[in-house]
């Protein structure tokens, strides 16, 4: 496969189809709209269905239905649209239904929404935050695997850089180990057999096949998420072994951190970088290890301070954790603003550690 210049939304759509996605429903809302456009034009040719839903709530409930038949399905929007989808995301989690949800967000202010969730009950959503289009292509395929493996809704946390920018990318299908057969999938075949199946968050079951009931079902699902937390955390770390200053960021901010770390190390500053790749499960153990011995753990996220809570929870020394990001949107409100800039980050790092430009 040769590299092609693809817009992120097109690359992600091809990756989803390569991963076996055969149902997609969504409602236009920038910067997610382009992914809906790409699915509308590419999915039918791959034998799939793409529906231009009449609302976000309708879209995710269509996808929930498709998932209940065992099909690999997906939906998406930006943070505002995902707010409408929260009830259905909880329902998917407590129905143990797999679904991939693309949040092509309008910035970084949806971290809590993705990691704490706004639905009902004990559930979490595995969330991957790629730092560029190339990583988004791999994450998309990984998410379809994880959703089926753990029977859970999962989220790709993208933004306008992921959705709109074009890069030379090679969307090659990735291989994953097989996932358990979907015996639970509904297709009508068990009707009249006396052992017909039901998918319902109350898990009552039927006369001949009684279910665990809400209490035990929800306990089991809560334990499942604890299990997932232990095995699915992912992160990227650089120069932590000798770092005195650790910069922590997520998503597309990561490429700016990498540039500034490279510059400051060349100037003799012992700086390292830590980037949670899964926002949930948060890579707490890895952060604790990377932050041990650091005199400064600086969190650079473009919101009012959300991931900093998790960093404080796991950092080796909570007292050295500081947020150096902030709310930053451009005029349209559709994308990050002036803080997304290497020169700004560099200045804030130097200020935070009490150094001025050129003082060293």
């Amino acid at each position, binding site marked *: 496969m040769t*590299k*092609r*210049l693809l817009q992120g939304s097109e690359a992600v759509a091809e990756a989803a189809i390569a991963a076996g996605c055969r149902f997609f429903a969504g409602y236009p809302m*920038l910067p997610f709209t382009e992914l809906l456009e790409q699915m509308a034009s590419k999915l039918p040719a791959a034998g799939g269905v793409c529906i231009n839903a009449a609302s976000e709530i309708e879209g995710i409930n269509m996808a929930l239905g498709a998932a209940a038949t065992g099909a690999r399905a997906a939906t998406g929007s930006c943070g505002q649209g995902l707010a409408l989808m929260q009830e259905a995301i909880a329902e998917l989690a407590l129905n143990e239904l797999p679904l991939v949800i693309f949040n092509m967000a309008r910035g970084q202010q949806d971290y809590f929404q993705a990691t704490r969730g706004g639905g009902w009950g004990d559930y979490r959503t595995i969330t991957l935050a790629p730092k560029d289009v190339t990583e988004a292509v791999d994450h998309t395929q990984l998410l379809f695997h994880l959703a089926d493996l753990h029977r859970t809704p999962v989220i790709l946390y993208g933004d306008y*850089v992921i959705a*709109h*920018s*074009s*890069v*030379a990318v090679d969307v090659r299908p990735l291989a994953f180990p097989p996932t358990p057969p979907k015996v639970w999938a509904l297709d009508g075949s068990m009707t009249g057999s006396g052992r017909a199946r039901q998918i319902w968050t109350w898990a009552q079951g039927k006369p001949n096949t009684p279910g665990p009931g809400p209490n035990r079902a929800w306990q089991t699902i809560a334990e499942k998420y604890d299990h997932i937390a232990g095995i699915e955390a992912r992160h990227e770390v650089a120069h932590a072994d000798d770092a005195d200053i650790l910069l922590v960021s997520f998503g*597309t901010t990561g*490429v*700016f951190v990498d*540039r500034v770390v490279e510059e400051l190390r060349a100037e003799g500053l012992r700086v390292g970088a830590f980037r949670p790749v899964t926002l949930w499960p948060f890579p707490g153990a890895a952060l604790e290890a990377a932050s041990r011995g650091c005199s400064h753990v600086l969190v650079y996220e473009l919101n009012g301070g959300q991931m900093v809570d998790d960093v404080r929870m796991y950092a080796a020394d909570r007292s050295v954790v500081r947020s150096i990001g902030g709310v930053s949107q451009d005029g*349209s409100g559709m*994308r990050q603003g002036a803080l*997304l*800039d*290497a*020169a700004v980050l560099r200045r804030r790092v130097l200020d935070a550690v009490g150094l001025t430009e050129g003082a060293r």
Partner: protein
Amino acid sequence: MNEREVLFTGIGGQGLQMVSKALGMAALADGREVLLVPRYGGMMRGGKTNAELTIGDPPLRALPVVTAAWSAFVMHQAFWETIRPNLRSGAVVVVNSSLFHLDVDVDEARSFRVPATDIAAELGSPMSAGFVLLGAFLAITGLAPVGAAVDAMRQLVPPYRTQHVTNNERAIEAGVAAGPALAAPAWSDLEGVR
């Protein structure tokens, strides 16, 4: 660090997004790495339509925010101020002089004025002004091969607009003729610009 940045600006309806992608695809065909980040708002026709393109040898170290660009591709003056501050001194600025009447106040700028809209109108295809300026830009900078840009254009024109392909091709050729050849070469004067 062998990378060149191009900041595009124009108004909706000038085909700027397609032209910026054609240039990116031509560079990719020429063996270079590419990062293209569009910036457009809600209003389509007449609204702001910008793009930031970085071309260089792999691995590309460009960031999705360009703050000191090597060159500018200016189709209209309406949103010139949104890119001017992000041009480095000595930048190569190629403007569509039919719809850009301001002075290029970038220090030591090497600016080139090409009446792309008028040329396109004379060809009988006013919509292809973007490709006229692309031809001129490639002639002046040699940033990517003209032939590869023509191939890219053919792939990019949507099925419901193939009637424009021949016009766009003639527009690129007319642009090449209008641009002083290698007056600001992209790849040979590596030191000249710092």
